[in-house]
């Protein structure tokens, strides 16, 4: 298991390098000029100096290398300095935002908890709802519950988050007044009441994000359970006299989880995409809304860093799924 985990970890390095190259080239080949906003009265020599100050003077491969060094070598050092009070990174150049003239990672560190908090809760809630629905509708195939479940998941598939968001706001915040429609990120939880408020303000964004996840995962759970329920080993288990709950919840469920784990992992890019929209709808100031602001402000270093952070999060969750996959299915470990 350990070698399997290590092998997966090593495999994710070229993936990350490829993604960083794609992002870098995308920004590099884009025709936008960061000097476009500078007044025409500024002489060309000064403009050239300004370009160099922004780090645009060197050839492409050197800048790519420098960016990699900044991101993978200097930023971790800054983090270590921050936690242990050491001085490894003092005087090193960090990735600087063109918007705020401060290191990009400082802003990102402030904003990433909101995103992860909302996205993470939504995913967990979605999975927790989806699994029982999928299991039960497969166990009672073509029952009323199954038919309703199919219809609801179809709707969940089809209604995009930028429609459910405003819809839920109109119904629950405006008409009923149950939940706030703006996510207050400065809110700090220190007693029971503030905890309840935090819960209430998280319900709407989490619901919007979880709807899609639930729909997708319960579909796959149902299909995968159906595949397994008719297998010979299930009949054997029943013939041995095992109780029905043990047969379904232990024997069938464990085998059915294998493809579902892959689907859960592959859903990560979609859920982060949904998070960008949800943050926009509910004014959560996470990294999704930061990406949008940076894009409109033509702040390329921030855009580059954030896109790459999204990629890293996706690769990280895929890695977890891979390891879970190995835990669930011993055949994969020895592949």
């Amino acid at each position, binding site marked *: 298991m350990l070698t399997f985990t290590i092998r997966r970890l090593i495999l994710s390095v070229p993936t990350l390098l490829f993604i960083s190259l794609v992002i870098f080239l995308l920004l590099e080949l*884009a025709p936008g000029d960061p000097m476009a906003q500078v007044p025409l009265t500024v002489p060309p020599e000064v403009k050239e100096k300004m370009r160099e100050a922004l780090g645009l003077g060197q050839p492409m491969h050197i800048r790519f290398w420098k960016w990699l060094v900044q991101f993978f070598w200097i930023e971790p050092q800054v983090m270590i300095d921050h936690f242990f009070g050491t001085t490894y990174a003092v005087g090193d150049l960090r990735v600087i935002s063109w918007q705020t003239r401060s290191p990009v990672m400082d802003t990102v560190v402030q904003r990433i908890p909101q995103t992860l908090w909302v996205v993470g809760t939504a995913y967990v809630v979605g999975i927790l709802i989806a699994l029982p629905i999928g299991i039960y509708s497969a166990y009672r195939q073509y029952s009323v519950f199954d038919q309703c479940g199919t219809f609801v998941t179809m709707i969940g598939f089809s209604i995009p988050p930028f429609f459910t968001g405003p819809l839920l706001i109109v119904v629950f915040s405006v008409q009923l007044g149950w939940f706030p429609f703006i996510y207050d990120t400065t809110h700090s939880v220190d007693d029971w009441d503030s905890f309840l408020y935090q819960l209430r303000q998280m319900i709407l964004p989490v619901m919007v994000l979880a709807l899609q996840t639930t729909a997708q995962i319960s579909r796959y759970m149902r299909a995968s359970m159906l595949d397994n329920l008719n297998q010979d080993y299930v009949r054997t288990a029943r013939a041995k006299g095992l109780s029905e709950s043990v047969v379904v919840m232990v024997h069938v469920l464990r085998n059915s989880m294998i493809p579902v784990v892959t689907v859960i992992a592959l859903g990560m890019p979609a859920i982060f995409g949904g998070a960008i929209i949800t943050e926009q709808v509910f004014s959560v100031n996470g990294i999704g809304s930061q990406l949008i602001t940076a894009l409109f402000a033509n702040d390329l270093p921030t855009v580059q860093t954030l896109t790459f952070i999204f990629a890293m999060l996706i690769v990280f969750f895929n890695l977890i799924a891979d390891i879970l996959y190995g835990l669930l299915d011993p055949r994969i470990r020895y592949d």
Partner: protein
Amino acid sequence: MTDLSNQTPLAPPRSQWLNVWDQLKKHKGALMGGGFLIFITLAVLFGPYIWTLDPQKIDYRARDFRPIYHVLFDADAKTAWGNPLGTDQLGRDGLANLLAGGRTSMAVGWAAMLLTLFIGTMVGVIAGFFKRLDGPLMRLTDLFLSLPILPLLLVAVTLFRQPLHSNFGPEGGMFILIVAIIGITSWMPTARIVRGDVLALKEREFVLAARSIGTRPGAMIWRHLLPNVISPIMVSATLGLAAAIITESALSFLGVGFPSDFPTWGKMLADAVQRMEEFPERVMLPGIAISLTVLSVNYLGDGLRDALDPRIRGR
């Protein structure tokens, strides 16, 4: 002993597609979905010729009209038969905008879906057929699957807007850009499915027979493999169409899509969110249009998957 020479079939032979259609007819959701998809496609194609109001025409005296049905709840509501779905804050007609917006959304959806299928099928067939290319192409597919799609889409659309704008005009440039980007970033599932099927087909006798009479690889793919993988391709076509419509609307919603005076369903929704307490219908109508279209496409895909699967068909 039974007479083996007299073997007249009980029923006349039927083509495969007739069987598929018979199975599809049993799936109510798929029929309704397909019907609605045809209806909405025809509506956005020919609707603007019947409802000839210009969606861009600004009429300040006729602004903020409510839809006709609003009279049912509120007798004093500002409505007019000339604008059955109301007008927006600039007095542009709701129905005309909905039709024009649907035209864009559907056009982007269909074009992006076709591009996705083209790339996905090509990669899948090549990876499945040529053993040497299988490894690299599938690694590439895996890499693409871990790309953060929506952030990349946002970045690409914002950065490449200008040059395409100057070459193909504001709408044409954006159309090419969005279609190309959706196509490039969503071909992976199709490629995987097609590759799997091609790998299985390659071991079948008819492929061996075709090879033994000296069929070239190109003809082999075109004549023998592609017709046999058409059913998974059709299923992923429906999924691709739904995904492309949603992606385009999401981009418009985030404000990086088509230019501001060019209606799409996503943009109409985004513009209306500001005043949705007073005019909820302006959010609902485009939202329902997107959702119903995607829902019908998904149901059609569900039915097609059942109908095209010979193990389920005939049950």
